[in-house]
Each structure stands twice: as C-alpha cells, then as structure tokens.
C-alpha cells in the first residue's frame, strides 16, 4: 500500500470514524520504548518516543547542533562563581490533556522541582512510584551529588545551587532524562490510585500528545495544538516498530513509512539508487576504539601500545567494515565536537616501525587477545570483521592475536574485570555534546575504578587534572585549550587504538522535508512535513 493511497483512504476513513487526518507521518522505529517516562531509562529508542516527542526540558539542543538554546526556561543567569543557576521560566506553557487529566494551571516552578526531586531524593513520594524503578542517568551523571538545592523563587523562577562549578551542567539539563513532567498530573494520578500512568499514559508540554501504544507494534501521537514553540506541520505522528533493518528498508521503499533509522551499511547503495528515497548523512558524534589493559604486562609499556597502534591499517577497516562511511579516528572525541584537537598527529600505519618499536620494548612472540563485541552499534557495525583485520595486521609484526567474543551481557561484565587479558573493541556515542561526556566518562582516573567505563584502566594524573580543571571552568575558550592539551597526552600515552568515527545515515522518502538530523542520534519530528 503506498502512501498516496493511504492518505486518500485515510481521508475517507475520517468521514467514517475520524481515525487519521490528512497528514500522518510514519516513522519506522527500530525498537520498543521501555516506557514513556524518560527519567528511569537509558536507551535512545525510549528517548525518541518519550522525551523528544512528548516532553521538553528547561533548555534544549538547537536542532542539528549540540548548542544550548532556551526551551521551557526563556533565559537563565549563572552566578560569578558558577554555583548558582537561575532559570526564568516561560509563561503560558500548557501541559497536554488526556481522558484522565485536564490541566487547570500552566507549567510553573513546581513542575521543575518535582521533575528533579523525584529522581534525586530517595524519600520523595514519587521516587519509587513503580517498584524497582531506578534513575540511571540521574545517578550516573551524579546529579544528586552536584545539586545542593533547588529553590522556587516565584512561580516562574527556579534557582539551582550546585556543590561545585560544573561546566556541562546546562548540557545535562538538556538531556531527555531531565524532561519536565506535570506535578498536577502526578497529583491526579495519585488520587486515582494509578501512579503507573506517569509511565504508561504520559502528559508533557512537547510538540506531540501521546495517544496510544500497542506494545511492540505502534505508538500514536497527535499534534499539540497549544505547543509553545512552532507548531508541528504534521497532524499525526506514528512510530511503526520494525526491529529488522532490511524489513525497515522494504517498508520505506514500499511507502509504508516516511523515515527510518539505522540502515545497514550494505544497503546504503540501494538507498542512493532509489529515486523515491533520499539519504541524509552527517558525521556521528561517536568513536569506536580498541582499549588495551594498560595495567597488565606488556601493555603497561607505552611502546607496546604504540607499536600495535602503528600496525593497524585503520583505513582498511573503514573501507571494509564501515564500507567507507566513516572517518579514521585519531582522537578520542569526534572532529565535529568543540575542543577537538586537529593538530594531534596520528600514529601512522607503519608495520616496519612498529616491529622495531616492539623489539626496542624487548617484546617478541607476543600472544594476545582481541575482544570483539557481539552486537552492532553505529560506532562499530561489525566488531568481528574489525578484529579479523587487526589480527592479520598484528601477524605482520609477529604478534599472534586470538579473537574472543562473549554474549553482550557477559562481554560488558568481563571487559570490566581489572585483570582482564586482551584488548577490547568498544565505543561510545555522545549524550550531550560536551567533550567531558567522552573524556571523563571513558578515560579519567575515576572511571578506571571499579565498574567505570574506562576499559583501558588507564589513569594518568596529568590528564585527569586537565579534565577536572576544564569541568570547573565555564569559559569555553579556556576549556577548549585544556581539552586540546588532554588529547595530546592521550595520543602520547596511547591507552586505545582509536579506530573510527562513523557517519550517521537517515534514509527517508523524497517527499519528506524539514527533518534535521541530530548529532546526538536523536530522532525528533517537530519540524517535519510531507509534500505532495
């Protein structure tokens, strides 16, 4: 069934039961949301379906960038010492209505305080509104430790006091887990004894109003006519959940949906050649890497790590594994991010020099493991193939590599064990566009401790000090300098082989306009339209 037929038929159907009006935008999403309260969850799929479609934050990322712009807060002031953030809230913002709830007041400071405190305060009556609920982002970004107090100055002013200056604070506030929910709706649910409604039947201020979710099948939204921002141009937004990438493409080609995420790299050519489709491409805010265990011999010797890095033909990996749709990585942060140090020289591919360096380090007949992750990620479409290419590269310098892999859950667990043997293929996609979100999370001394994400267990005091200094400063120019310096140390010490920054592709029907790709990999549909 093609879309024209669907639209004509839906016009007919409107007369009968008014189910769909003329402009219905269908997004073939790749998975089911875990719920519609964005706070307890961590997956992008959930954020697209909840945080981005239904809710707003105090501030937001300007479409297509990681710059912060006003959202529910019209403006904000930061105190000299960087400890006080005063947000001036937008007046006249209306929450959605549903069959259980019609708001009697506009959005105000109470909603902001409620949205933060229910996550941060273990004694808050809504902290455990679903048994076993946890707030992973709030806790892993250490928001509770960071925020000393939140104070209502008046209905339209909220003051946050921090325990220490934190430059990425605004970027954190723009993330979906800090979506603003309605305190009044929570009260209504409480009175009705249906608290799980906060997660199943969401109310927000966002561009689309939640209509219905049929588990694992379809999510339906309609336009929020009272939206404070520019009103969406489509009337209905539908997520058709389609887990398989090839099937998504078939649906797109058949006109059963307008736009899809995550095409498989092998299908890019087909999409380019289909006259009914177009392809939006953008460098992704990600990095794929191979992390050595820098605490275990002989990988504790920087010369060994450097030698292995020089032995890897990264361009060959980009060509074979990413089908050319990626950029060879030299830094741990992607080039589209501010603070990227382009002056850093990558260790050039040079097996001869690598061999010599290995000899100099007194290492011969080295046996090692390369860990290949079992799942596909935008930063690493095929870790097994990547590992095979590295294996053959290493054999050229006399290093015998064995490829090992575990099921994903086990992979995550075992790769965190401090005495781990072998080098691990993994990667990262940015949450909020701040360099700290890469460098501190993945490479700081703190992250090398138990349970952190630093799979190289690399702890360099000088590097970590630079990060701490940068985090405490609100001067972007100064921060940029500090991060540039940190990248020089990183390259010099080589805890990882940086592999690639992949390109993000969004295939869509040719008649779709106004879709702006987010560098953070979010899918938002406020601005989309369908032309005839």
């Amino acid at each position: 069934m093609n879309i024209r037929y669907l639209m004509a038929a839906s016009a007919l159907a409107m007369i009968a039961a008014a189910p769909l009006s003329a402009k219905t935008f269908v997004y073939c999403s790749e998975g089911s949301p875990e719920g519609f309260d964005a706070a307890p969850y961590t997956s992008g799929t959930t954020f697209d379906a909840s945080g981005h479609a239904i809710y707003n934050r105090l501030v937001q990322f300007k479409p297509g960038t990681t710059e912060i712009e006003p959202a529910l807060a019209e403006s904000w002031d930061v105190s000299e010492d960087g400890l006080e953030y005063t947000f001036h809230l937008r007046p006249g913002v209306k929450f959605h209505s549903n069959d259980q709830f019609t708001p009697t007041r506009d959005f105000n400071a109470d909603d902001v305080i409620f949205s933060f405190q229910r996550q941060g305060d273990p004694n808050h009556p809504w902290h455990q509104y679903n048994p076993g609920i946890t707030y992973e982002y709030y806790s892993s970004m250490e928001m509770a430790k960071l925020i000393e107090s939140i104070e209502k100055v008046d209905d339209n002013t909220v003051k946050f006091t921090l325990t220490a200056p934190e430059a990425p604070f605004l970027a954190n506030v723009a993330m979906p887990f800090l979506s603003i929910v309605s305190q009044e709706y929570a009260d209504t649910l409480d009175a009705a004894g249906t608290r799980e409604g906060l997660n199943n039947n969401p109310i927000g201020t966002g561009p689309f109003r939640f209509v219905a979710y049929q588990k694992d099948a379809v999510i339906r939204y309609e336009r929020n006519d009272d939206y404070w921002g520019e009103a969406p141009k489509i009337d209905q937004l539908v997520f058709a959940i389609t887990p398989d990438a090839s099937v998504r493409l078939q649906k797109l080609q058949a006109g059963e949906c307008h736009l899809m995420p995550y095409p498989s790299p092998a299908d890019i050519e087909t999409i380019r050649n289909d006259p009914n489709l177009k392809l939006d491409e953008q460098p992704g805010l990600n990095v794929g890497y191979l992390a050595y265990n820098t605490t275990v011999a002989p990988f504790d010797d920087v010369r060994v790590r450097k030698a292995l890095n020089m032995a890897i033909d990264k361009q060959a990996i980009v060509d074979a594994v990413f089908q050319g749709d990626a950029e060879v990585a030299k830094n741990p942060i992607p080039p589209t991010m501010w603070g990227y140090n382009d002056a850093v020289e990558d260790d050039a591919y040079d097996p001869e020099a690598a061999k010599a360096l290995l000899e100099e380090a007194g290492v011969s007949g080295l046996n090692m493991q390369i860990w290949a992750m079992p799942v596909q990620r935008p930063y690493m479409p095929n870790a097994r193939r990547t590992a095979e290419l590295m294996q053959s590269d290493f054999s050229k310098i006399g290093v015998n590599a064995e490829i090992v892999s575990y099921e994903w859950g086990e992979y995550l667990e075992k790769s965190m064990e401090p005495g781990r043997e072998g080098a691990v293929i993994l990667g990262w996609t940015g949450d909020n566009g701040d360099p700290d979100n890469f460098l501190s999370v993945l490479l700081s001394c703190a992250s090398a401790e138990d349970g952190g994400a630093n799979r190289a267990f690399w702890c360099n005091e000088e590097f970590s000090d630079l990060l701490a200094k940068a985090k405490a400063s609100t001067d972007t120019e100064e921060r940029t300098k500090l991060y540039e310096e940190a990248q020089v140390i990183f390259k010099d010490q080589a805890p990882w082989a940086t592999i690639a920054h992949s390109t993000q592709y969004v295939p869509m029907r040719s008649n779709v306009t106004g879709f702006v790709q987010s560098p953070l990999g979010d899918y938002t549909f406020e601005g989309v339209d369908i032309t005839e």
Partner: protein
Amino acid sequence: MIRFILSKLLYLVPTFIGITIVAFGFIRLLPGDPVLLMAGERGVSPERYAVIAEQLGFDKPVWQQYLTYLGNLLQGDLGNSLVTKRPVMDEFMALFPATVELAVVAIILATLIGVPVGVLAAIKRGSWFDQISMTGALVGFSMPIFWWGLLLIIFFSGYLGWTPVSGRISLMYYFPDVTGFMLIDSLLSGEKGAFTSAVSHLILPSVVLATIPLAVIARQTRSAMLEVMGEDYVRTARAKGLKPSRVIGIHALRNAMIPVITTIGLQVGVLMAGAILTETIFSWPGIGKWMIDSISRRDYPVVQSGLLLIALIVMVVNLLVDLTYGLINPRIRHK
C-alpha cells in the same frame, strides 16, 4: 473418560514444578547480568550496583529468590518486568493474542495443505507428485526461517507489491483492542477495508510460520498412510468392493490420523519457537519477540514467567490432543 482426563491432569503438577525450576534456573545460568546490561557501555559503580540489586531483590540467595517467586506464583503474581516495570501477566495478555492468531492460521494452513499432500503422495507412491512433494517437504523442513521470510517480503511485498511488508494491519486503521485478535477486532470495528487489511497482513507471516509444520505434517501423513494401507482391514475393505475413496477416506485415513494428530500437537511447540523469528521479521507484536528481547536484557521475571506460561499452553494443547485421540480411536477411549 473422566479418569483418563484426571490422570492426565495429575501429570501436569510435577511438570509444572519442574518447569518453574528450569525457567528460573535457566535464565540465571546465562552469564551477564540485568543491572550491567541496563548500564551498557557506561558501566556501574559497585555501590550503585548494590543499591539496584537490593531494590530488585538480587542480593538474596538464589534459593530464597526461587521460594519467593514460587510463593508469588501460587498467589497468581507473576512478577513485574525489570525493564518496563509492568506486570508480566499484563504484558503477556497484550501480546499473546497476536501470537495465537498467527499460530492458529499457520497450523490450519499447514494441516489443510499438509494432510491432503501426504495422502496423495502415499496413494501415488513413487509418482512424480510423490517425489516432488516429498523433496519440497525436505526443503521446507530445512528452510532457514529468517532468510525465507526476508525472501518472501522482498519478492511479494517489494518486487510485486502484493502484500504489505510487516505489521498486523494498515496504520490508517485505529480502533481499540477488544479481543486482541486482529481478524475479529477489525470486523467489530465496522471500518471498511479493515478486515481485508488484517488478512493481507497475515498472509506472509503465516506462510513462513507454517512452512516447517507443513513439511512435517505432509511427511508424517504420507508414512502413516503407507503403513495403514498395508493393514489387513484395508485389504478386506478393498476385497469387499468398497469404493477406493471410501477405503482411503474412512478406513485408512482415520487410522492414519492418530500419529498425525500427535505430530500436529507437537508442532505447537515448534510454532512457538518459529514465532520468535517470524515475529521479529514481520514486526509482529507477539510473545516470541517479547521473549527474545527479555532474554537479551536478562529480564528475569519476564523470562521465567513467560517461559512458564508458554510451557503451560503447550502442555494444555498436548492434553487436548491426547483427548482427541479418544474421539478418533475408541480403543483409547475405553481403556
């Protein structure tokens, strides 16, 4: 007959307890851990891990967790999903009708085609029909479901444009669930074209899901028929001058059906396994895909209770199959 049913029901009790142990133990034997999977690439500190584990009850010894689980089960509480936090029973009930609808259509399809093909192949043993259909059955039985499903989508939905690619009904139809069975709900909705749309969405997935059972049923029917056709009573029936259609239809087929019905009953288990792949390819919102997602997220309550529910259904279906023997074969009924 009542004693027969009661004795069969009695078997269910130890089986039930066995399944709870297997279901509970199986998912915990898999390496990997739900808390770490939730944290993903980011990792989780030991303090934070302890807090979450305590909230989820994982800090207690495993035997204690099992007893709690069993106790809750006996009170009808299947637990809540770790991921969605919703009751497992609610999720199951939301998804189960979709699987049943697909499985019923598939088994009907497999039986309606498989039995006549098997009978014909047996009667015309050694003919070109026999050879082609039995080769076809072998191919069907060995078919990799995922590949087969994609192939059909690419050809019928992509190239020919005859069938929709995936889903249960066209997105232009939106009506509330009444029974959860799309064929029924689309009729109840009274919306023009809804039923046709639901049928067209069922065609490819049910063909894919029916493929393996169809092959098995056809082969089983053929061999059962061949065996029965050599029996004395068939020779007698022929000798007394009955029409061949009556000999085959009444005397042979009825006796040959006993192993075939067992096979069909056993296929319910196969269908549940096939549903996992079929549902994933066709974005069919059923329990197969739900189980797979839950296993990969180590969503313990969903996996253990979901497995239990599926096992119960297979058990009940097999019981019903046992009972139908009685209807067909008086010897079993009167034992």
